[in-house]
Structure formats: C-alpha cells, structure tokens
C-alpha cells in the first residue's frame, strides 16, 4: 500500500477463502464493497451510525462492523462473511442452533449476529448466557427480544 495519498486504490483481499483484486474509491465503505462490488449480499446495513451490527464480518479473525471501515483499510486482509460460514453447504452448529431455537424471525440481523457469535465461540467455546449477551451487545435485533438468540448461542457452545 502506497504512502502517496490517492482517491482510488487497487486493493487485494481474501474473502471467504478467495483472492480478490479490485479498484475502489477510497471513500467506499467496506460493506458497500462487499455487497455492491462483490455481490455478497448476506452482509446487511441496518443503520448509518455503526450501532446495529447487521454488517458484522470478520477481518483477520476479528468481528468488526463493515460500515465503519473503508474498503481500502481492508487491503491485504482476510475477510469472512456469513456466506463463508457454511462454505460447503453444511450448516454450522451455530446456524443449525439458530433455526432450532427460533433465534431469527425476519433474518435481517441474523448474518451479523452469526458473525459476532461465531467470533465469540472461537474465543470461548462454552460461553455462559452472560458472556453471550456481552458479546452480542453490538448487534441489534428488533424481532426476537434476544431471548432465543442467546439460547441458541449457549446451546451451540454446549454442542447441543
């Protein structure tokens, strides 16, 4: 990455295991790069202030809100989106648990929730209810009241 300021950049990212190289304007948000430029529409936008977490993805293994990063900031990074969870079409235990526990209604917040919860489970495979609520604080759901989401993540941790 050059130290000369520029309005457009060619960036290279690894996304869900695939290498992508594309020119983007410096002002483009990572979430729009993912959705509009790469067509990975599983990552959603629910607010314009970084509060809702619907756009949560993993950058180099950490959960981040892709509406609070510029695409150029991700140059050289490895990205995982919801589409990368069940890469082989087989649902992860967490995804399955979400369905079993009715942890989603409209499904709009779900990709972000799954990414936050996946990051939690990777750090802490057996989270308590309190751990889960703490880890999901940055993800707003307007349908479920969180009850079943918390249940689903705890259950996924127990391998249930």
């Amino acid at each position, binding site marked *: *990455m*050059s*130290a*000369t*300021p*520029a*309005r457009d*950049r060619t960036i290279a990212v690894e996304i869900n295991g695939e290498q992508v190289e594309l020119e983007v*304007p*410096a*002002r*483009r*948000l990572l979430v729009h790069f993912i959705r509009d430029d790469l067509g990975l529409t599983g990552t959603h*936008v629910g607010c*314009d*202030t*970084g509060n809702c*977490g619907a756009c*949560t993805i993993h950058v180099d293994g*950490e*959960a*981040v*809100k892709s*509406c*609070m*990063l*510029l695409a*150029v*900031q991700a*140059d050289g990074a490895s990205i995982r989106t919801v589409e990368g969870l069940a890469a082989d079409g087989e649902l992860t235990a967490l995804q399955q648990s979400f369905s079993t526990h009715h942890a989603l209604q409209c499904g709009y917040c779900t990709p972000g929730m799954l990414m*936050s919860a996946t*990051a*939690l489970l990777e750090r802490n495979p057996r989270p308590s209810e309190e751990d889960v609520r*703490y*880890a999901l*604080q*940055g*993800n707003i759901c307007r349908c479920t009241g969180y009850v079943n989401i918390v249940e689903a993540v705890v259950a996924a941790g127990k391998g249930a």
Partner: protein
Amino acid sequence: MLLREVEYARPGTIDEAVRLLAEHDGARPLAGGQTLVNVMKQRAAAPDVLIDLAALGELREISVSGDTLELGAMATLTQIVDSSEVDVARPILAEVARTVADVQVRNRGTIGGNVCVNDPTNHFPPLLVAVGATMTVRGIGGERTVPAEEFFVGVYLTAVGEGELLTRISVPARGPGSGDGFAGVTIGAHGTYIVNAAATVADGSARVVLGCVDAVPVLLELDQAHEASARKAVEAASLEPPSDVHASAEYRRHLAGVSAVRAVRQATERARG
C-alpha cells in the same frame, strides 16, 4: 452513510505519517476509525486526506517500563482488555475499556482515537486525567509530552496540533495503597455516558475527574478521599453542564455528584485492598 471524496494513504513509518500530515492540508490521521468514519458518513466533517496508521505496528505496543505503563496510541480497546501488562499495572484501564461500546468497536477502536476525538461522553479522557497520564505527541520537529490535564482543550479538540500525531500514552502503574474507580450513568447497559466520573485515591487524597459536564474533563482534587468531600467538591465546582434530550443541566449536575461519590467509594475500597 456515503462519504465525500477523500484521499487515502497508508504510510509505513511514523516519520512518514507525520510528514504526510504536515504536507497535506486537511489531512487527518485515521486510527481505528470508529468515530471518524462515522462522522464522515454523516458528512458532518470531511477530511481531505486520511493518513491510515494501520501499518505502524510500533504504535500498537503495550509495555511496562519501570513504574510506567506505556500504551501505543494505536492499541485497540480489545488489546487493552486482554493485556496482562494492563491487568498488572493499571487494571482500571481494562475495566473501563471493557465497557466501551461493543466487541466490534473495541476490536477496531483505539485508545489514541478515543482520547483524540475527545467527545465529552468518551470514557478515557476523564480516566486518563484521573490516573495522571502523560501523552506523547510527535510532530515534524520532534516529540513533546503533554500531561493529560492539559491535553484536552475543547470539544473534539486536543493539544495535538495540525501535522502532529499522538503516539504514546504513559500511565503510572498503580502504587501500593492506591485505588481507582469509575462510575456514571449510561443510556442502556454499556451505552453512551450521560455523566461519568473517574477517581484515583492515594495516600488518603483523591483526584476526581468528571466527564460529560463540560467541554473538557473537569478535575477536582480532594484532600481527603471521602464521599462527603467528593460531594462537596462537585457542589463547589458550580458546574454548568449542557442540557440535551437525555438530561437537563440540573439532572447532569446531580449525577455528577452521584458519580463522583460512587467513583471515590470504589477507589477507596480498592485502595484499602
């Protein structure tokens, strides 16, 4: 949600970053971006050039040298939460970092960004004043240090001038018989502060610093680390806090007293061990 045109550079060294900041009018350092990118999304403020500090690995380091905890300005809040150095030297920093926004924001947001933004509701400005931190600022002409008490100049304004960069925050390690506290009232759990207060107690005296009641953190020095003297000091400070949708000036003034007392109580308990 959609930003204005902006130029972007990612320098590889601090010197290069400082040079770029000095060379380009309207250039701003981009740390974690958890405030800056948001503000740019609203197009409320629009830097012309962003100097991304992401590649400056040395700014991410957390270490202890002697009795001082050294925090690189680009250390993320998650790093601070997880750091064993912080845990040993000044655990209040991790404790407070743990309540800033949410996991995703803490993963990107940096301590340097938190203080350089100096939003009156931010956690670290009052805390760093309370613990007596020293800020190291690098400019094209070299380095200078600024005590935290003098670092916060106004809303969104700090002692970091045009073409300068905050590089390091030095925090004295917690001494024996001392204790730190932090209290306040938020909008929702771990939400934005309506009022907060940080306190450090050592040798029977206390420093209490109030946040969200003025353009900059308000420092109150107490001869005696008592709840009553904290209450009195807040009253004597004749605060004129802003009113907004979450709190009238009167309610904020009241909460300043409550928060100060609670922070001092916590710090005192910890000082006792």
